């Protein structure tokens, strides 16, 4: 049964554990990339689950599945933690702005062999600013629609699209640089031979 569905009279409500804990791995993955730190991510996940547990009684009134519900709590918890740590995400800094302007005519993503690029992709994602990173994580990890991401993050769908656009462009640039370095190093290796 999906969380959020109403129960019929006499029907047992599934336990919080059976509904939410199966998504622990996914929630952790998102948290890990949001925080960029293992321990902080673990704390964030635990805080998210405890908040979800305390709100579980009110959960069925939402027209939400368990995954989006958990991710929304994760998002809010993450923002609260940032506010507590006075590390609220700042607006785009000048350098990024220049990059975004330069991205107006992007060359598109490079042709890459992603099977060997996990660490590079993760590193590139870690370098995104939190707002962009969060949208990109939801987009990539769960293959959510823009509308679902908008609901989870509680922002307009246009904001989701612009953040995702910028996140993708930065990711493309980072991976493009990596690809160029790879090509250079392979050319050099060939010349040495």
């Amino acid at each position: 049964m999906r969380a959020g569905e109403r129960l019929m009279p006499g029907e047992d409500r599934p336990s919080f554990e059976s509904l939410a804990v199966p998504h622990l791995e996914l929630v952790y993955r998102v948290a890990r990339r949001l925080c960029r730190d293992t321990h902080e991510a673990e704390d964030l996940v635990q805080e998210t689950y405890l908040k979800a547990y305390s709100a579980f009684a009110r959960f069925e009134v939402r027209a939400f599945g368990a995954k989006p519900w958990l991710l929304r709590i994760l998002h809010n918890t993450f923002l609260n933690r940032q506010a507590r740590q006075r590390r609220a995400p700042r607006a785009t800094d000048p350098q990024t702005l220049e990059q975004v302007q330069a991205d107006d005519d992007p060359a598109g993503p490079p042709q890459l062999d992603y099977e060997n690029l996990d660490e590079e992709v993760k590193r590139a994602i870690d370098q995104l600013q939190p707002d962009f990173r969060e949208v990109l994580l939801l987009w990539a990890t769960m293959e959510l629609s823009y509308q679902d991401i908008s609901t989870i993050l509680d922002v307009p769908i246009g904001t989701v699209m612009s953040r995702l656009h910028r996140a993708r462009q930065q990711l493309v640039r980072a991976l493009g640089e990596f690809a160029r370095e790879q090509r250079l190093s392979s050319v050099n290796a060939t010349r040495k031979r």
Partner: protein
Amino acid sequence: MKPSELRLHLPTYADDELPPALRAEVDQCLATDPGSRAEVERWKALRRGAQRALQSEPLPADLRDRLLERLATTRRRGRLLRLGPVVGTLSAAALIMIGVFAWWSTGRSDVPPALLTPERLARIYQRCALERHHDPFQLAHKSPREAAATLAKEPRVTYALNIPDLSSAGFHLEGVCLCPPSDGVQGVHAYYERNDADQRPDRHPQDVVSFFSLARRVRLDRCSTLCKSGRGPQHPQREYVVASTGDDVTVLKWDEQSRSYAICSALRSDELMQIVDRLNVAALSPSSPAGLATGATPHVAHFTIAVAALAAGALSLVSRRRGP
């Protein structure tokens, strides 16, 4: 559609998020533009690559266990918090009952004693015991225990009965009546006759002693100058008030717990004191056939039962909540 515009839409197209009309337009362009089609594929590959990279993030080994443990702890705390109002309500109810009981008990002890003149008691002694031989229950020559058992069945007797045994003083029970000494004071009047009185041709008032077990405390009225008080050697805690009436009848009154007792006779006060001071009236109360010793006892019993019921209810509630 311009090429720059087309390229702007390609990532959204790859995500299948374009509105149908725009999507159709892009589809038309892509049909004739293999470079753009390749770019769409690269955007899709980027999403798959990001997904793949993120899925390679391993879950810390003990995170699941730690989380489940924290959830269990939170659940236990929550259960206690949920029980808080129930326990609080029951405690409050118990406290209110204790308060009411305390108030009731205090109130009872603060009830002023009824006023009663010694002459009232003396008149019952004279009329019922000496003149009329008033014995509606036909308890003459019965043992005090039998008399108490008989009177316990009498609806008008709503309190514990104390019919003392005066045989050690040479008296036997001659009759019992419920003649009230005044409107506000109910009581049992038991009178005794000296054992050898039948052998004398005339019946003397000195041969008859009346004992009163009164339902509440009384204070002897108009007694400020005529009365005196004293204590006997057997029960030094008892304070006897001794009053003499104009008919040479002596009245001895004392209080125990919430009740008053009196004895009166034409005997001298020192002779009466000797008889009275041997009586252990309070000791008769708990074993009284009436079952309940004093006026306060039923309330104590009810209170105890109520508190026990509350405690049992709370326990059953707790055990039900702790169930599987």
